[in-house]
């Protein structure tokens, strides 16, 4: 796999950024660009100028001729691309496939980015007259979670503090400085009760992984393969008003149960997880939705350090979306790259999760739980 440095990457264009992830992923897999039969790209791409990013990137990286697709599942576009490529390999249609995520969000101004992401619900009923923003969609979840379970703004701040601490240990992360609870609580209100440091940054970045069938992996002599054991997929209504509650994301519950069943595991078998913490409340809800704890216990998990390295189940020890950054379509692929490194015990010891079952989980949400993807990896 390959992974660019995340952050403000105004120093490169879309194709150059994709190259930073694709080239190393090809080198490590012993495949050349010409040998890749298929590439699935996760990218939203409204903020950058190319409407056909898969084609442009394929040409730039020497992949022209391969089958191409750009997948959209909002912030889970990277996982959608992975699912697409995984299905192609798993079905026997392809013996290998490249999964790429790339996003260049810093080419336009911030209010326009908020405009584009805010429209990503049910445009007609949530944006046209009411101007919902992405922080606002998650803020309504935070308010209900706080009202129902007593979760506090301080609890949410602890998620940001944890993820910044690990982001500071990740040289590829966008935000590499530690923060304090006070700093989070005193930061400007974006959509009450969510403040600046409850929100992930607007980030550029790319990631790539090569998938291969068991036969192809043997042929290539891959020494230490990491296997996709299962991918669970689900969705929820476009209109938030059509949902039963706002204390969790049903698509995460459904996708995770599907993935656990397919992999034949339970949440307690997971050694390390990346969860979709686009906002601090999202990480708290993810613990509960994925079955790491009971409903309403998410804040306690972070308070008691259960999701830190050395805790019961380390979560987002790469900094998460919160500190590593969230280049929309890249995130799902970045999670797979990070977990592959975790499973191979290749990350800095300070943020390496101890491996017992060599099993990892990636949870990637598109929209406000509109799309749910849960992937189980095993080494």
């Amino acid at each position, binding site marked *: 796999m390959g992974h660019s440095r995340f952050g403000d990457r105004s120093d490169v264009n879309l194709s150059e950024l994709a190259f930073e992830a694709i080239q190393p992923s090809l080198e490590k897999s012993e495949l050349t660009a010409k040998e890749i039969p298929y590439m699935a790209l996760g990218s939203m791409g409204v903020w950058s100028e190319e409407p056909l990013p898969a084609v442009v990137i394929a040409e730039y990286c020497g992949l022209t001729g391969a089958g191409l697709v750009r997948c959209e599942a909002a912030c889970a576009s990277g996982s959608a691309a992975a699912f697409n490529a995984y299905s192609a390999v798993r079905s026997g249609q392809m013996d290998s496939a490249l999964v790429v995520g790339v996003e260049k969000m810093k080419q336009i*101004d911030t209010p326009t980015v*908020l405009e584009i992401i805010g429209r990503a619900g049910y445009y*007609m009923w949530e944006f046209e007259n009411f*101007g919902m923003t992405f922080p*606002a969609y998650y803020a*309504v979840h935070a*308010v209900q979670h706080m009202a129902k379970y007593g979760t506090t703004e301080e609890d949410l701040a602890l998620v940001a503090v944890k993820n910044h601490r690990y982001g500071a240990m990740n040289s590829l992360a966008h935000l590499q400085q530690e923060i304090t609870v006070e700093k989070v609580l005193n930061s400007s*209100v*974006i959509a009450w009760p969510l403040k600046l440091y409850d929100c992930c940054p607007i980030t550029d970045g790319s990631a790539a992984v090569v998938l291969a069938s068991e036969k192809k992996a043997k042929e290539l002599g891959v020494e230490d393969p990491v296997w996709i054991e299962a991918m669970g997929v689900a969705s929820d209504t476009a209109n938030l*008003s059509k949902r039963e509650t706002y204390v969790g994301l049903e698509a995460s519950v459904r996708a995770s149960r599907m993935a656990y069943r397919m992999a034949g595991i339970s949440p307690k078998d997971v050694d390390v997880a990346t969860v979709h913490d686009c906002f601090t409340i999202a990480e708290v809800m993810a613990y509960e939705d994925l079955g790491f704890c009971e409903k309403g216990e998410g804040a306690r998990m972070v308070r008691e350090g259960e999701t830190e390295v050395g805790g019961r189940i380390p979560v987002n020890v790469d900094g998460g979306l919160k500190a590593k950054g969230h280049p929309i379509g890249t995130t799902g692929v970045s999670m797979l790259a990070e977990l592959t490194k975790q499973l191979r015990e290749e990350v800095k010891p300070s943020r390496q999760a101890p491996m017992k079952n060599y099993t990892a989980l990636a949870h990637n949400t598109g929209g406000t739980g509109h799309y749910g993807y849960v992937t189980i990896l095993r080494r």
Partner: protein
Amino acid sequence: MDKPLSLKSARTLQITYNLPISRTSKFWEGLKEGKVYATTCQKCGMLHFPPVADCGNCGLSNVKWTELDGEGEIVTFTQVFVKPASFSKEPSYIVAIARLKEGVKALAWLTGIKREDVKVGMKVKLVARVTSDGRATYEFIPV
């Protein structure tokens, strides 16, 4: 590090969508008459808000219009401070989701109250409104 170089694109794209409302026109006309309508499926009886012309629950396209009373209770809410570009001239606004007495929920602005005074469980009323620039919409007001 040197400042990254970029070209300012000479091509500007401005998009304004036409939003088709032929099949839900009664809803938009209703707002101008001070009424908020939902639709009810004549086969399965499901009440739909926002209104739909086709029932996704049973596949029937023969729905009837049902005026909502508007009484409801706040389920959750937020106040948007950092706004999208097209809302930049609006003062900070409260968005609430409320369950109406008919059973459906609605998402709309909550006006006429400070956020500090808003509580989950608070009674509100969903009312039609025509904005100063002639746009038909709906909002919650405290009761």
